[in-house]
């Protein structure tokens, strides 16, 4: 122990880590009425870290070649010690991470934390949401199974509905007329090199913005000491008399992370088939489309929307409009009121939107 202490003293003398810890951990005060929903950001950081680590481990045995990809994934699942565990963690982790991401966004919406002056926090978060969808889609192709192949065919095909440049863009995305080895190459590069890097950078921006503006107090529960937002100048929203991040809120973060890990590992061990349909166990065959090809659950609503609208361009436009509206929400919703019950129009929209999304997802699943 004393050796550790001496090491700490040695580093502290040169870097002043004690001062940083005081400022960022014990001295970092959060609103007194902060709740568990605020810990979802930390949960997402852990989820992302798990994806990065398991992804790096999969790279040890995975071969990104159309001829060998499916075999190498089978090798990982059946031959490599604990290969099944690493692969399942990666496949299940992407699903649970997206679920946590959706909850994180919902809590931000309901508690009105996206409002001025936090528009940039919301925008960077929205960008992260889109990037995570992109990394999920590109990773889906990697195992080169029937499911990967046809889900990617359908997903990339929807771009062709765009006027003029549509067909050309599909070809550019796929690196050829059809999904093929060239598609695997570019999707693999996006999935393991480009997107993780961009996501990591946007995460840094997102956290930087959080640190600059400060945490917005929840609009309900015990009242907080915070002074209201002054629109004329930059001001860090501090919370004098609040609870320190360490150890108080760190404990809440840890609790939420443990709950997340319990659910995540529960799925990994007791419902390992969750991320897979039978088509995931058949190697890709460009000459045989399986009967019912469907995307992952988080794309089912989009998939169903495209089926409902008679015209693909119309379906895409509606989705694009919905996404744009969501992204620009802080610029449309200017009132400073943040309590959900005092915003009836907003609450109706959120509840209606969630119900619509669930309905489309269920419909898409059973159609």
């Amino acid at each position, binding site marked *: 122990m004393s050796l550790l202490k001496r090491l700490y003293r040695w580093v502290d003398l040169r870097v002043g880590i004690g001062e940083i810890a005081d400022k960022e951990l014990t001295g970092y005060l959060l609103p007194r009425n902060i709740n568990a929903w605020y810990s979802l950001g930390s949960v997402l950081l852990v989820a992302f870290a798990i994806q990065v680590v398991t992804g790096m*481990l999969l790279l*040890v045995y995975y071969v990104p070649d159309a001829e060998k990809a499916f075999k190498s994934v089978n090798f990982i699942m059946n031959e*490599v*010690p*604990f*290969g099944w*565990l*690493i692969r399942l963690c990666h496949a299940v982790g992407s699903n649970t991470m997206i679920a946590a991401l959706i909850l994180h966004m919902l809590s931000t919406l309901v508690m009105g934390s996206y409002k001025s002056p936090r528009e940039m926090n919301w925008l960077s978060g929205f960008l992260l949401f889109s990037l995570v969808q992109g990394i999920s889609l590109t990773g889906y192709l990697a195992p080169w199974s029937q499911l990967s192949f046809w889900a990617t065919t359908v997903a990339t095909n929807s771009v062709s509905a765009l006027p003029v440049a549509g067909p050309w863009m599909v070809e550019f995305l796929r690196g050829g007329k059809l999904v093929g080895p060239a598609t695997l190459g570019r999707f693999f590069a996006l999935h393991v090199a480009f997107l993780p890097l961009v996501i990591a950078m946007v995460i840094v921006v997102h956290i930087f913005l959080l640190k600059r503006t400060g945490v917005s107090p929840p609009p309900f529960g015990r009242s907080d000491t915070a002074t209201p937002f002054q629109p004329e100048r930059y001001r860090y929203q501090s919370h004098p008399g609040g609870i320190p991040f360490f150890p108080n809120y760190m404990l809440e973060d840890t609790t939420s992370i443990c709950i997340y890990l319990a659910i995540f590992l529960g799925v990994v061990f007791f419902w390992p088939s969750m991320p897979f349909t039978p088509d995931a166990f058949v190697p890709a065959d460009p000459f045989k489309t399986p009967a019912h090809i469907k995307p992952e659950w988080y794309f089912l609503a989009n998939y169903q929307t495209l089926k409902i609208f008679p015209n693909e361009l119309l379906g895409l436009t509606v989705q694009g409009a919905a996404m744009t509206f969501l992204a620009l929400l802080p610029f449309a919703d200017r009132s400073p009121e943040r309590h959900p019950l005092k915003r009836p129009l907003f609450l109706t929209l959120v509840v209606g939107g969630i119900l619509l999304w669930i309905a489309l997802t269920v419909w898409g699943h059973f159609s």
Partner: protein
Amino acid sequence: MDSEGRRKFLGVCLAGTAAAAAVAAGYPVFRYLAPRSGATGLQKLVISAADLHEGEAKFFEYGGSSAVLIKTKGGEMVALSAVCTHLGCIVQWVKEQQHFLCPCHGGQFAIDGTVLAGPPPKPLARIPVTVTGGNITIG
């Protein structure tokens, strides 16, 4: 005083749980990355005797490493590890001189593996060979 003891006890429990979790996560990762056992076992290898002429050498993989088989001018079969005992390069067979030359630092080995010249500290390891009919069995 009582709360001090309680604090210590909880600390020990927490550290223990954390250590158990670290082992539970680390062990699969270690096994996942560890080299596959069994792949480098010393199985026997059979080569057809017709493949090799007198005074020639044949290189092959044996036990996960490189080895060489030579048929001497007298018709005798010699099998050796082809890994130089100096720093691990693979030796070359010099047919004209009937000896091995290591290209890395100029080590020389005789046909029976003994060091003739250069830095190698030990002779090349010998591998047992048996000839039955038309087949050469190594190992």
